[in-house]
């Protein structure tokens, strides 16, 4: 190897400087602030140790319910989006489907819309008396199913999750289709010769070969689900009451209350949580690759 061809380390200096100034240092500062009593009302910032973290995990049941809601939302949307995206992708790569690209475009299109727009549109569609959904149900004689979608405690979370899955599954579908297309048709031809059924082919060829794609999809969904804000904010604003509040809506509320340290504490918790989760997911991926 020609050592002259290697650029000296200080060539990265500019990039490292800008990266640390704009990304790294603010991030670390944010975490450091979570150990203080930084707020809007006094200029002093005092070190308070783990006090903020303790109050999140003890007395304030509200924060724990936000963390619980965030996890529930993440798990539900990840599973539903992956399953729905996978099924649609499988369907839209079959030979008997006409106008595949048109269907793909239609299913993908919600992804292009802004979360705020989707949230506001669905809020009016799900209004109990003037909304499209209930009027439609009533007009076809299903009055019993015309419910208070966004204000009934039992229904509000499923409603929010459904809207989010509707919006997000198109993207997952596109990623999985890309994975499906890259599987060599030789495997399927060989299976056909052996007389394998569709279900056997899916189980023994498609899913194993799609594993890396599916793991990526899961990472995307999990990190999105944990950081969700705009969907909830525009659809229910965390309501009724705090029934659909998640970590990021709580962060927003703490900042607007002027309790800046508590806001950074909650977002630091989220950061560490995502970091830990990603570490394990990536570790398991490395492991898989070594096996193959």
């Amino acid at each position, binding site marked *: 190897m020609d050592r002259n061809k290697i650029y000296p380390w200080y060539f990265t200096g500019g990039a490292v400087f800008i990266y640390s100034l704009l990304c790294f240092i603010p991030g670390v500062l944010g975490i450091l602030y979570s150990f203080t009593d930084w707020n809007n009302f006094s200029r002093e910032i005092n070190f308070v140790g783990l006090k903020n973290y303790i109050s999140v995990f003890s007395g304030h049941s509200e924060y724990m319910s936000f963390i619980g809601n965030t996890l529930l939302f993440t798990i539900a949307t990840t599973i539903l989006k992956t399953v729905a995206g996978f099924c649609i992708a499988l369907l839209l790569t079959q030979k008997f489907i006409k106008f595949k690209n048109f269907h793909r475009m239609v299913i993908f299109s919600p992804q292009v819309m802004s979360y705020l727009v989707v949230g506001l549109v669905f809020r009016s569609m799900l209004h109990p008396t003037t909304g499209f959904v209930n009027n439609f149900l009533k007009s076809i004689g299903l009055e019993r199913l015309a419910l*208070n979608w966004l204000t009934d405690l039992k229904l509000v979370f499923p409603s929010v999750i459904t809207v989010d899955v509707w919006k997000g599954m198109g993207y997952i579908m596109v990623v999985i289709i890309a994975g499906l297309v890259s599987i060599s048709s030789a495997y399927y031809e060989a299976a056909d010769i052996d007389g394998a059924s569709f279900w056997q082919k899916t189980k023994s060829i498609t899913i194993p070969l799609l594993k890396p794609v599916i793991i990526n999809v899961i990472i995307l969904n999990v990190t999105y689900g944990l950081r969700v804000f705009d969907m909830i904010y525009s659809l229910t604003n965390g309501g009724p009451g705090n*029934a659909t509040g998640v970590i990021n809506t709580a962060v927003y509320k703490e900042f607007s209350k002027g309790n800046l340290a508590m806001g950074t504490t909650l977002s630091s918790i989220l950061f560490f949580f995502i970091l830990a989760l990603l570490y394990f997911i990536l570790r398991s991926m490395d492991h898989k690759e070594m096996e193959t």
Partner: protein
Amino acid sequence: MSMKSNRKIWGVLVTAALVTGMLAGCGTNQESAESSTKTVESTEEGTGESTGEAAAEKEAGGEKITLTFGSHQSGLPTSEVVQDLAKKFEEETGVVIDFQISPDAQWRDLIKVKLDSGEAPDIFCADTPINLASSMQMDEYCVPLTDEEWVSRIDENVLPAISIDDDVYGITFPGKKMYFYIYNKEIFEEAGVEVPATYEEFKNVCRKIKDLGYTPVYEATTNGWHQVLPLFETGGLYLSKDTELYNKLNKNEMDFDQVPDLLTIIEQLQECAELGYFGDDYLSNAVENAKEAIASEKAAMFIAEAAWRNEVVADFPDFDAGKLGIFVMPWGDNQVIGVNPASNAYFINKNSKYVEEAKEFFEFLARPENLQARLDGQPGLSEVCWPEIPGRYSEEDSAYIDAHDKATVVQVAVNYVDYQWMDVGKDLESMYAGAMTPEDVLKAFMDRRNEQAVLQKDESWAE
């Protein structure tokens, strides 16, 4: 070898050039900012966003002055009557007023940051009262206006909201706010009921109206604030049991769990919701749609200010506002009208170069003809807080209002209530949805209040 050292030298040189370039960039930035303010100054109606002081322009004849005026949207009437008055002021004095308007939700934080960093406009609008511990420290930032001529003409009940200790710091126009139940007289007649004076009577009225197929009360929780009115606009009821209540609460000598009527009212709200008196959709409704609900006579009652009826007529000209009457919110058998003297006021920045010109503008706004113009330009306003200008209350309303006691509402007199208004709204929503009990709502409210007091290092909360 020489190639290698050459490359090293080049590397160092390029890095050095990059760094100096960045530093130089910072340096020239400031200069260019200065020069850009100069260009702003030279245009007549420049938006001097970054200029802390007013932009001045030398003209052939003399000096032309521009005052910057920062406000949130709701600080200036949407009819732009203040902007029109500012144009007249310019014709008269040659002083230009340059308005910079920000969204409501951001203003409280934005103006605070601007004041702290010395970049605040010459005149700015802020929400009142300013005399609470939880308000902004206007005495640090603003010019005292106590000696101005117009101070003596403002309604004296309003002065505390714009004063700190004994000094007046702002000028304010909207009159005191009073919320009532606006009700449809024809529906009441059809149901054969009278205006209720107690909670039991109110429930009876609601039941009879509901039996006729109307929604008794239009309630809307999605805006977050409207459902909270019955809790704190009824301060007169609480004060009637203990006249020193507000002081005791501010000194942390007692808390809201020792105000039994508050819990009673929360429980009554829950009862009415469960009985269906707010209709089926109140958790999905918005305040903006109340006009339609009242004008179409789907609903019989709605909590609003008396002048809100003018807005109904403005949107639904065929509707006869004479059908609508007012009565005091009878929650907890309350019969005292809650008076909120606070709204927003205009202040002069202490660091402004043109304090005298700003004072002159305030004098101009305080002239009787301009006060009248201000009232005329805002249909939703019942009165201005200047007794010389007659209000818009009808004779019937005035008689009703005069016949009742009045008391200051809780949120302008007790610390750490107003700031959490929307949070209480969410808790009430939780209660209606079944996730909280009335006791939970009260406890959450008290917890937040104590938490905020500790956060602000309130002396009465020091252990």
